[in-house]
C-alpha cells in the first residue's frame, strides 16, 4: 500500500544537473525554430556573400563571378540530380556517381578517337561551322549519355542490387569500393596527370555583354544545357508512367511493388537517367575545361552531393537549385577567402546543412522511422 509522502523525498537522489524549467523550454523552442528559419538564414548569408564581393571587387568582377558560379553550378546540378534520384529511390549515397561523371568525360574522348579512326574527325566537324557544331554535339551527347547510363545500370546490377535489403553499412561500403574501383581503372588507363578532353575549341567566343560583363558562349551553353535537361527531367518524372513509377517506388517500395510496379526495372531506369545526366555534365565539362583527371569525380562528387543535400535530397528540382547555389557559393567564397579553401567551404556547408536542417531547402523526404 502507498507509503506516504515523506518516503518519496528521501528516496530519490538529486539529479546531476538540475535544469531550470524555463531555460529548458527555451532551449527546445529554439531548436525547433532554428530549423524553420534555416531558409531565411541561408538567403541572408548568401546575399551578404554577394554584397561583400561587390563591395570588395566592384560590379564587373561580381558580374563575371556570377556567370562563373552559374555555369559551374550547372555542371554540379547535372551531377547532383543523379545523387538525389538514387538516394530518393533506394536511400543509398552512390559514391561511384562522381566517378561515372569522370568516366563520361573520358568516354567522350574515346568516342571521339574511335570516330576519328572510322574517318569522322569530331573536332573538325565541330569547328567547321554552326551546323557542324550542332551535328557534333548531336553525336557526342547521346552516345556519351548512353554509355554512362549503361555504366550506371551495370553498377547497380552488379554491386547494389543484392544488397538492397541489407543494413545500410553494407551498400555504403560497396559504393565506396565501386568508386575506388572506377578511379583505379581510370588511374591505370589515363595516368595520374591531366587527360586532355580535346574539345576546348568547339565552342568559343563571346555571346553578349551586359553592363560590361562578358558572357562567353561556352558558359551560356553550359547553363542552357543544364536548365534544359533539368526541365526535361522534371517533365519526365511528373508526366510519364515511368516517372510516376519512380516517384511511387521512392515513397514506399512495398506499396509500389504491390501495385504491380516492376521495382527492379524502375530502379534501373533511375540509375540510367541519373548516370546519363552525369554523362551530359561530363561532355559539357569537357567542352569548357580541358582537364580530366582520375580523381576528378571524387571532388566533384562530394560537391554535387552537397548540392543535392542542400536542395533537399530526393527532390530533383532541389538538386538543380542546390547545384546552382553551390556553384555560386563556391565561386564567391573563393573570391573572399581564397581559392585553396573553396573545397573546405563546401564541406563546411555540407556539415552545416546536415546538422541544422537535413531535409534541405525543398525538404521532401521526411524520415519515416519513428
Amino acid at each position, binding site marked *: 500500500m502507498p507509503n506516504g509522502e515523506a518516503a518519496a523525498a528521501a528516496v530519490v537522489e538529486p539529479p546531476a544537473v538540475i535544469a531550470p524549467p524555463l531555460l529548458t523550454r527555451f532551449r527546445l523552442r529554439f531548436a525547433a525554430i532554428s530549423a524553420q528559419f534555416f531558409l531565411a538564414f541561408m538567403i541572408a548569408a548568401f546575399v551578404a556573400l554577394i554584397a561583400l564581393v561587390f563591395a570588395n571587387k566592384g560590379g564587373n568582377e561580381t558580374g563575371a563571378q556570377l556567370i562563373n558560379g552559374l555555369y559551374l553550378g550547372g555542371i554540379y546540378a547535372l551531377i547532383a540530380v543523379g545523387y538525389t534520384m538514387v538516394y530518393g529511390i533506394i536511400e543509398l549515397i552512390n559514391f561511384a556517381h562522381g566517378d561515372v561523371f569522370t568516366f563520361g568525360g573520358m568516354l567522350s574522348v574515346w568516342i571521339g578517337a574511335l570516330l576519328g579512326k572510322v574517318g569522322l574527325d569530331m573536332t573538325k566537324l565541330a569547328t567547321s561551322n554552326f551546323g557542324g557544331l550542332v551535328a557534333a554535339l548531336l553525336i557526342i551527347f547521346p552516345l556519351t549519355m548512353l554509355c554512362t547510363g549503361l555504366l550506371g545500370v551495370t553498377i547497380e546490377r552488379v554491386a547494389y542490387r543484392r544488397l538492397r535489403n541489407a543494413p545500410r553499412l553494407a551498400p555504403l561500403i560497396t559504393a565506396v569500393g565501386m568508386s575506388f574501383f572506377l578511379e583505379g581503372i581510370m588511374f591505370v588507363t589515363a595516368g595520374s596527370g591531366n587527360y586532355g578532353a580535346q574539345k576546348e575549341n568547339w565552342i568559343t567566343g563571346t555571346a553578349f555583354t551586359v553592363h560590361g560583363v562578358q558572357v562567353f558562349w561556352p558558359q551560356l551553353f553550359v547553363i542552357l544545357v543544364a536548365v534544359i535537361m533539368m526541365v526535361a527531367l522534371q517533365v519526365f518524372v511528373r508526366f510519364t508512367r515511368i516517372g510516376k513509377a519512380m516517384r511511387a517506388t521512392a515513397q514506399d517500395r512495398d506499396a509500389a511493388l504491390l501495385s504491380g510496379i516492376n521495382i527492379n526495372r524502375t530502379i534501373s531506369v533511375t540509375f540510367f537517367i541519373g548516370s546519363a545526366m552525369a554523362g551530359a555534365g561530363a561532355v559539357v565539362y569537357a567542352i569548357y575545361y580541358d582537364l580530366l583527371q582520375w580523381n576528378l569525380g571524387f571532388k566533384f562528387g562530394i560537391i554535387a552531393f552537397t548540392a543535392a543535400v542542400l536542395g533537399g535530397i530526393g527532390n530533383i528540382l532541389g538538386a538543380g537549385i542546390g547545384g546552382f547555389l553551390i556553384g555560386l557559393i563556391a565561386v564567391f567564397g573563393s573570391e573572399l577567402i581564397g581559392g585553396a579553401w573553396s573545397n573546405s567551404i563546401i564541406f563546411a556547408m555540407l556539415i552545416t546543412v*546536415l546538422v541544422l536542417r537535413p531535409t534541405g531547402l525543398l525538404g521532401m523526404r521526411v524520415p519515416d522511422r519513428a
Partner: protein
Amino acid sequence: MPDIADPQARVDLPDTGRQTRAAESSAVLWLVLAGGVLLLLLGWLLPWFVEQTASGVGHSPMDVIVSSPTGIGWLAVWAMGICMLALLAGVGYDVFAQLTERATPFRWSRIRAGLAILGGLCVLLIFILVVTRSELVFGDQTPDALTDNAVWMMLTGFGLLAFSYGLRPWVVTHGGLAFTAVAFVVGGLFPLMFNQSPGFVVWGAQFAGIYTLLALGLNVVVGFAGLLDLGYAAFFAIGAYSTASLSSAAHGIHLPFWVIIFIGAAAAGLFGALLGAPTLRLRGDYLAIVTLGFGEIVPDAARNSLFGNLARPSTGGPNGISGVDSPAFPTHGHAIFDYGLFGANPRPYYYTILILVALIVVVLRNVERSRLGRAWVAIREDEVAAAATGINTVQTKLLAFAIGASVSGFAGAFFGAMLGTVTPDNFEFAVSVTALTTVVLGGIGNITGVIVGALLVSFVIFWVLPGLQEWMGTVGNTVGISGLSTIQYSDYKYVVYGLILIGIMLLRPSGLLPSRARKVELETGAESEPLAAVRETG
C-alpha cells in the same frame, strides 16, 4: 525483435556465448593453419615456377636445401623433412579416421604434439644456423632474393603448420593466446629473416605496422561503435603533424619521441571528439559523408597552413615539414645512454612499432570487454533501448571517436618520426580507404581480424604487386604474351582496394574473421534507429 520462430534465423547463430568463444578460437586455428599452408606452398612453388621459365635465375628451395648441407644443418633439414611428411601423414590419418569414424590410436594427440615440437625445434635450429651463418645450410650457394624469400616463407609456413596442427587442442581452447604467441615469435624474428634485402623487407613491415594501427583504430569506430568513418586519415594527419611540429626544425622545439607520441595521440583524440560531435545525430550514410568532408578539410588546412601565413607557415604548406627528429633515448648527458639506435638501420623502428602495436592491442582488448565495450554493442544494436537503459549515447559515441582517433594519432606520430618528412599528400582519401579496406577484409569488429586484414593488404601492396612485375615478365615469356610484363602492376593498387571492398560486401560481409555479433547484423539486416530521429519527432 526478430522473429525467433524463424528457423533460418536460428541456424546462423550459436546458442550460447561459450559456443561463440569456441567458434572464434577455432577460427584462429583455421587461420594459422591456412597461413601456414599458404606460406609453405608459396615458398615452395613460386621459385620453381619462376625458375622453370627464366634463364637460370633463382633456385627452388628444395634444390637449395638438399644441395650439400653439412653436419648439424644436414641433420636438421632431414629431420624437418621427415617431420613434415609425418605431419602430412598425420593429417591424412586424422581425416581418414573422421570419415570412417574410427578411433585414433592411444595417445595419438601426444604423438602429434611431439612431432610438432620436433618440427618446430628443427625450424628453430635451421633459423639459428642461418642467422649466425655458422653452417651453410644452403650449401655453397648464396641464394638470390627470390629464393631467399621463398626459403624463409617455407620455414615459417612449416612452423605455423606444425604448431597449429600438432598443438591443435591447446590452440582451440586458448585461441587468443595462441595467436599472440605466433604473432610475437614471427614478428620478433622477422627482421632476422630475408637475408637478401632485409632493409626493404623491414621497411615494408613498418608500413604494415602502421596500417595495422590504423586498422585497429578504425575498427574501434566502425567495428565497435558502428559509425562509418570515411575521413579517418585526418586523425593520422594530426598525429603526424603534431610530431613534426614539436620535434623538428620547423618551430625549433625538440621534444623527445616518447613524449611526442602521447601528445600526438592526445591531439588526435581531442580532434576525434571534436569532429565526431556534429555527426552524433546523423544517420549512417550522412555520418559517413560528413566524416569524409572532415577528412578532406584537415589536409586542406595543412596545405594552406592554417594558423600561419606565408612568412612562417605553421604546417609547412604543400611541402610539409621535413627534418623531423628520429626517436632517441634521452641521454641525460651520459654517453652510456646514447645507443644511437635510430639511424639508417630500420630494425629499431620496426621493433618500436611492433611493441606499439602489441600495447594498443592489449588496451583495445581491455576496452572491448569493459562496460564501454558493452555500451558500444548496445548502441549499435538498439540505440533507443540503450539510452532507455541508462547509457549516455553522446558520451559513448564521442569516446569511440576519441579512442579510435588517438590510436591513429600514435600511428601518425610514429609515421612522422619514421619518414622524417610530413606532407599533406600523405593523408589523402586513399589512406582512409586503405584503412577501411583492411578493416572490412579482416572482419569488422574483430581485433584479430583487422590485424590479419592489415597484414594481408600490406602483403599484397608491398610484396605481391611489385613482385608481379617480375613474375609476369617470365610468365609472359613462357606463354608468349610479352605485353604482360609491361603492365605496371603497382598502379593497380586502387583497383585492388575497390575489388576487395565490393567482393567482401557481396560475398562475405562480415570479413575473413567475423566477429560474432557483427556477422549476424551485417548479413540479416538488423538495424538500429538513431535516438535523435526518435526524439525529434515532436
